[in-house]
């Protein structure tokens, strides 16, 4: 597999969210706005790149029988770093994402890439794989966040998108359900269907 393919497969062909259906909890939980989706995606991407790097560096030292617990400890260390750094520098985003930051540990995408790719490949290609998958995950979360934010609060990254008629008070009449829990499921359902169509053609 060429480097370019390793990097780009995460976007459409093997997109972790739309095609592989991994990491769905944060995908549904934090995407009330595009900015939240982007923040969560980048946090996961960082953990993915760093854990892939470390796993591929020490893969020959880890006995085969305890490799899964070893991977989990490596991932959990980087998640703790992300948690503390975000709490210090972007406290508002950290409060919004809340529980889903420590839950990056159990995100199947991260453990899946460590087991399926980083434990068998060189350091450099593992990092590229982590970057590609991380950006694919970020792309999926930002896309779902953007759809929900446009339909549910008539905005994108906080900027007003006037697609709805205004009521007497001058505020837009939005489909509020899209920023609530059901909108996450319905939005993702339609996006998966569209992505299936795109990746097949």
């Amino acid at each position, binding site marked *: 597999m060429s480097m370019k393919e390793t990097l780009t497969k995460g976007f459409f062909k093997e997109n972790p969210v739309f095609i592989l259906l991994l990491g769905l*909890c944060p995908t549904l939980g934090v995407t009330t706005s595009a900015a939240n989706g982007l923040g969560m995606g980048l946090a996961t991407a960082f953990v993915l790149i760093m854990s892939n790097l470390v796993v591929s560096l020490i893969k020959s030292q880890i006995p085969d029988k305890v490799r899964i617990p070893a991977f989990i400890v490596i991932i959990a260390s980087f998640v703790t770093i992300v948690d503390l750094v975000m709490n210090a520098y972007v406290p508002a985003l950290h409060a919004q994402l809340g529980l889903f930051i420590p839950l990056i540990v*159990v995100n199947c995408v991260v453990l899946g890439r460590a087991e399926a790719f980083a434990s068998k490949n060189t350091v450099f290609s593992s990092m590229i794989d982590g970057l590609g998958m991380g950006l694919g995950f970020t792309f999926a979360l930002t896309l779902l966040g953007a759809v929900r934010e446009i339909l549910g609060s008539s905005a994108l990254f906080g900027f007003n998108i006037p697609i709805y008629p205004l009521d007497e008070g001058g505020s837009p009449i939005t489909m509020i*359900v899209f920023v609530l*829990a059901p909108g996450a499921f319905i939005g993702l359902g339609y996006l998966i269907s569209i992505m299936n169509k795109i990746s097949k053609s």
Partner: protein
Amino acid sequence: MEILTIIILAVFVNNIVLAQFLGICPFIGVSKKIDTAIGMSGAVLFVMTLATIVTYIIRYYVLEPFGLEFLQTISFILVIAALVQMVEIILKKVSPTLFQALGIFLPLITTNCAVLGVAILTINGNYSLIGGVVYAIANAIGFGLALIIFAGIREHLDLMEVPKGMRGVPISFIVAGILALAFMGFAGIV
């Protein structure tokens, strides 16, 4: 009274799957048949309750006295992984029938974010040990309720005429969305 409030809030109002988005992977993955959904719910009930008790003790009697709260994520996930392995071994020896029923679901539970999620939520919510156990059991029941209802709907969905592009996973998500919409009706009862 307080305990009843915790139960109603966790099972219906803040349903762990449909309102808090934890445990989505098994919710989509093992909800094709009602039998497997019941087995999975039983396994989650068992592990979630045990995990909450153990992580509660770790947090308040080990991490806090030594000022090691930042190790919470690492220690909790290790404890849960070890616990699942241990439960598997003990069940195999003590109750082979129960192991037959729950066995295949146990390894899946380590990566079920609902278990770690509830352990952390119990700490964040400042529950007492009893309150935490009740909270964990109520959440597991809420998980089972959502999973079994969803499995029932999916069994019928197989017989339906669904547009080609929406077949399989996409229509399941739309159905889950409508189910979440129904559960929103419980908001405000407590």
